[in-house]
């Protein structure tokens, strides 16, 4: 068990390392650096910057040092909470991101909860009532969830709600609460706006998980021990939930950890379509404007958040499922 935790922790640390390196690469990839854009800005304003001045500035900012040294310094600043300055907004990155990180986390976690809470019962239902109307409905939703990317679903939803109800969906807050400080009313407002985008984000995960659950449970229900249990007088519910469902849950353990990265990825595009105040729209504008410190910071935060979430769900599963503890 301890070995398992240690292995998980090591892997998570390694993953965070890889993500930070990739974020740094993304910051450094576009041609030119801060000084080049500074010079361009000065020249646009009519001023000039000599080569010597530029070199001095580069030296001062440490941009003339080898990449790995710059990476180390960048990491050092990150650990002290300094994410650099957004070139576009001329404010510290942390200020620009602000609340948006928390809305992203809330949205992703809600979607993850939906995946769990809806997929398992639906999967069990469609296995137990195989070929019933409900099963066909689930199968249909399953195919939609697999085939339609979230952002298209969001687009269709926008259009449908506009045509049918003449209402604008989108956003996470009513206009009255948009810039209001946090209060009970604002939280309630958020809670009312949250389910729809979260469901859109969750639907592909729900579809996949539901299909796996259905297939596993069908395999399990055909086994003789289920008949034996029924013959010995166990009630139908008990004979279903006590053994077959638990066995059918097994393959989930290895796949559920991957649904969070998936949801976080999807949230970016869905947020843009539905105009949600998450880091998604910010990331796209930052990337389009080549505001790399902001973009790199967002990518890093999203990555770390995902790794932490996955780690937490792994540990939770270990606590729930004794087999992992024994294998570890």
């Amino acid at each position, binding site marked *: 068990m301890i070995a398992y935790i240690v292995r998980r922790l090591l892997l998570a640390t390694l993953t965070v390392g890889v993500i930070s390196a990739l974020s740094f690469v*993304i910051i450094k990839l*576009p041609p030119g650096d801060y000084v080049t854009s500074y010079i361009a800005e000065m020249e646009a304003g009519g001023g000039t910057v000599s080569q010597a001045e530029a070199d001095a500035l580069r030296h001062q900012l440490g941009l003339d040092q080898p990449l790995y040294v710059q990476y180390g310094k960048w990491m050092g600043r990150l650990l002290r909470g300094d994410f650099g300055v957004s070139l576009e907004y001329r404010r510290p990155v942390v200020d620009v991101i602000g609340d948006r990180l928390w809305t992203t986390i809330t949205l992703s976690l809600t979607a993850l909860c939906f995946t769990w809470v809806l997929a398992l019962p639906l999967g069990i239902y469609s296995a137990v009532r195989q070929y019933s109307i409900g099963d066909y409905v689930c199968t249909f939703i399953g*195919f939609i969830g697999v085939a339609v990317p979230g952002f298209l679903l969001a687009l269709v939803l926008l259009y449908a709600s*506009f045509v049918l109800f003449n209402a604008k969906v989108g956003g996470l807050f009513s206009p009255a609460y948009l810039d209001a400080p946090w209060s009970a009313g604002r939280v309630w407002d958020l809670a009312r706006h949250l389910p729809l985008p979260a469901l859109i984000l969750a639907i592909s995960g729900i579809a996949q998980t539901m299909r796996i659950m259905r297939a596993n449970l069908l395999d399990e229900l055909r086994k003789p021990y289920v008949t034996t249990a029924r013959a010995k007088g166990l009630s139908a519910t008990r004979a279903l939930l006590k053994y077959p469902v638990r066995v059918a849950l097994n393959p989930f353990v290895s796949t559920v950890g*991957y649904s969070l990265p998936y949801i*976080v990825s999807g949230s970016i595009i869905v947020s843009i379509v539905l105009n949600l105040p998450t880091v998604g729209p910010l990331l*796209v504008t930052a990337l389009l404007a080549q505001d790399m410190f902001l*973009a790199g910071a967002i990518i890093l935060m999203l990555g770390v958040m995902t790794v932490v979430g996955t780690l937490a769900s792994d540990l939770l599963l270990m606590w729930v499922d004794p087999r992992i503890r024994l294998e570890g």
Partner: protein
Amino acid sequence: MATVREWDGAAAGAEDRASVATQWQLMWWRFRRHRLALVSAGLIAGLYVVVLGADFVAYSDPLASNAQRSLIPPQPIHLFDRGAFRPFVYAVTGARDPNTFQRVYVQDRNTKRPIRLFARGFPYRLFGVIPFDRHLIGVAGADAEDALFVLGTDVQGRDLWSRLMYATRTSMTIGLVAVALSLCLGVVLGGLSGFYPGLVDTVIQRVIEIIRSIPTIPLWMGLAAAMPQTWSVTRVYFAITIIISFIGWTDLARVVRGRFLALRQEEFVTAAEVAGASVPRIIFRHMVPSFLSHIIAATTLALPAMIISETSLSFLGLGLRPPALSWGVLLQNAQNIESVALSPWLMSPAAFVILAVLAFNFLGDGLRDAADPYG
């Protein structure tokens, strides 16, 4: 007695047929039973015909813009003219609404434009070589650009159907190239991992785990955004392909590794090893043929993810850039509620994305069932 013997004979005949059939024949028989997969195979074949002959199926120059034709709604095609089958469309005339300043279009009921097959239109090179100017359809008496709007036009007055045909070419091939790349990565790394248990396997498995636990879209967005603005359309195309192929390889590698591990235990592999066959010979001569069908199925199932990735990146403006055409680029026009509500036909590329992705999923399902015809 006679009936019994006949019945015996028929059963023996069927059994003979199955026992002498080749592996591929068995698979084909199994595949045929999956109706949805067959239909999907037809649909995908159709889409690839469009890929080959996009310029032929398009009837307007996809880049010919004209503000006079901005946002024309899809035009109804009338099939019967005075009782006879003679498809035609009415001419469309536009004017600006003096109150809303929007262009409104009315059908001119007095001017009928018959639709012609193999009509002359904008010049192009068939299959990239033969100079040609015939198109599948066109109208008599006017340029197709000014008269035929099967799916309507976009803001700049470019015909959506024709643009969609060209976009299909890009989106359907980008998935293929990307999947081929990730297949190479997946087979080599998955194969290594399955063939050398121990350190190599552990390292590759950990790398896969790390990649899978990173939210991919932000990362690939970052990489895509770092492409210089000055790059040509072709370079961007290949850069995007490479970027999205890094998404798909981990799944393929897992499939290949699983197959390798299962086959390592088989007697014929041990036999080949004992007979002194070299490692490459064992892999490529004995093992690969026996899981080729599984790889084909897994590849088909990986394609939709590639198509969706490209569409998402281009939709955000970080993938292919205009004047390049792809489904995602076309969907950029449908990004906000205002345009979607006023001109819903701009969403039609979404139908193509959904159809293609569904078809690949069904086809992959059918292939996966067929890959193991003994089950």
